[in-house]
């Protein structure tokens, strides 16, 4: 058989094989192995996997720590998403101008995105130090927190402390997407609204936001999924503490797997996250009428 005929359009498998192989090894196999794992548990005495049926799943729904981690994750996701969206849109509206200097501002705004999240976590860990952290000092000067109050080591404020890092790093991403959306809007309807006597808030709520809806929906979706999986900031800044105040679902999962060697339970938790994300994302896509 000649080489040319092997790579002919009639044999699509030859072309697809490399991709399918990569997918099978790195995506499909782990996925199915994860399902397999969730019905087993590692037994450290026998040094082997033992079949446990639905024990992991049943246990998960009765695990108070898991629900606590789940609600911490939801709070984290909701607060960060809201703040990043509102700030992102607001900043985008402010710098969506053609004047001199705006180009520079737009470029500078992207800087946080190039810093690795773990490094951002370290930075904020230092900046939020109650003794010599600049952020703590600023919040104290503004009377937002008491002098010497530990931001990250108090269970009341630790989650907010972690969120600050996330918001600092990811708001520019929202700004970027909102700027692209604003840029693509036609100018004329807004001119018409001006002659019709509309104020800024009318234009924002009646025209701009509805016209931006598809792009807002995609931004919220991407960011929301990302926020649900938050791990790096928590790992670097608080390790889930104090206590379990900042323990998110992905951090809890990681702990089950790598600290407690409960591979089966960790697999169950990760599958739960996956199912939850798929269901919520799907509902969101329907509600927001996003068309792919």
């Amino acid at each position: 058989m000649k080489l040319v005929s092997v790579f002919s359009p009639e044999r699509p498998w030859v072309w697809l094989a490399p991709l399918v192989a990569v997918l099978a090894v790195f995506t499909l196999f782990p996925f199915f192995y994860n399902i397999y794992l969730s019905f087993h548990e590692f037994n450290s005495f026998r040094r082997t996997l033992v079949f446990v049926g639905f024990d992991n799943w049943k246990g998960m729904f009765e695990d108070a720590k898991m629900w606590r981690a789940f609600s911490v994750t939801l709070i984290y996701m909701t607060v960060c998403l809201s703040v990043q969206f509102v700030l992102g849109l607001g900043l985008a509206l402010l710098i969506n101008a053609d004047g001199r200097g705006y180009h520079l501002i737009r470029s500078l705004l992207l800087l946080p995105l190039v810093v690795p999240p773990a490094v951002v976590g370290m930075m904020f860990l230092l900046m939020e130090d109650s003794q010599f952290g600049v952020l703590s000092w600023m919040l104290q000067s503004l009377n937002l927190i008491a002098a010497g109050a530990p931001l990250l080591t108090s269970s009341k404020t630790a989650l907010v402390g972690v969120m600050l890092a996330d918001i600092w790093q990811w708001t520019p991403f929202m700004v970027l997407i909102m700027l692209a959306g604003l840029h693509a809007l036609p100018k004329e309807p807004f001119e018409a609204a001006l002659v019709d006597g509309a104020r800024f808030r009318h234009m924002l709520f009646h025209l701009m936001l509805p016209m931006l809806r598809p792009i807002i929906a995609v931004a919220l979706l991407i960011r929301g999924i990302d926020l649900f999986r938050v791990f790096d900031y928590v790992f670097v800044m608080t390790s889930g503490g104090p206590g379990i105040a900042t323990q998110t679902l992905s951090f809890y999962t990681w702990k089950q797997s790598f600290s407690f060697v409960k591979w089966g339970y960790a697999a169950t938790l990760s599958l739960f996250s996956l199912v939850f994300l798929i269901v919520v994302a799907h509902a969101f896509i329907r509600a927001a009428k996003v068309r792919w």
Partner: protein
Amino acid sequence: MAALELRAVSKTYRVGDREILAVDDLSLSAGDGEIIGLLGSSGCGKTTTLRAIAGFVQLTAGRIAIDGNDIHNLPPARRGVAMAFEGYALYPPLRIRENIGFSLLRERRPGGEIRRAVREIAALLDIEDILDHYPAFASAGQQQRTSLARALIRRAPLTLLDEPMSQLDPQLRAQVRTRVKEYLAAHRLSAVFVTHDQNEAISLADRIAVMEQGRLQQFGTVGELKNRPNNLFVAGFIGEPPMNLMAAEVEAGGARVKLLGETDNRAAAAVGELRLNGAAPALDAGRAHIGIRPHQVVLADDAPLRGRVISNQWLGDQSHVLVDLGGLRIVVVSAGRVRDLRKGENIGVNFPPDAVIFFSAKDGTALPRAGGHGGE
């Protein structure tokens, strides 16, 4: 309900290092309740002028006043103008109904009043059946009428319409035109509208401003534009078919005029001669351009100026006869059917002295007649 005045308005766009003079020293004033048509070819600065009045174009020079108050530095919302945009500029997230009522809602008018006003204006423009649609699902003509309705419902002191009927079919256009005219008159609204279509300008406007390359060529009533054009451009632009224009040599005293051919063809030998009984203006050099409207040319078997028929078109109510006077082609419009004039036939044409208009050969401006009376 408002008088408009533009004084020496200029607008230069800067694109990179290129400068585009879109409006050049434009002055015109419109009285209270008057409807003004801006007529001109594509790219002559009509939209720029209108957007300058609305406040979306920063003037390079000049002033704009409404009722005697300078408004050219006010934001659009404070100028008291309503506008229908060339590209409709509808609000995509709002239904047609909400699009039309948007301005009334901003004025905090009661809901019942808004509904009534929207229904009334929608009936006027025949878009009642699509009031609950979104703009994206309306046809271009429906979108355009929505944008027209949105401007008219305001009953603003000054209404600006940028090619408000360009997307409508001829029947609908004629119907909408009369209804809009009645509406504007009934509410004593002043309006400035832009159009390419001289029929539209003629039937809707009280006075027409003809523009070309950013400059105002003439501002006047249809009668003035047709019978006393300011220059060759207006003469050739207004009227359907346009005025016959030709180069000529006027004899001292103005008794006789030699026709030399087309306006851009100066070398040609004389085509023929006209006797104008001293109506021609006194000219130093003798060279001029003359013009005559197609329907004022008389076909006569015994006329001294002779030519051959090139085509004869019967349009149902009038004939367009194209006659070749030996290198110079003129159109003759005859109201009655010109019987059996066939291609190639020899025919005489007569230019009534009163109907002939003279233009300077140098710059194309109209010249006053020796007799001092125009041909109204």
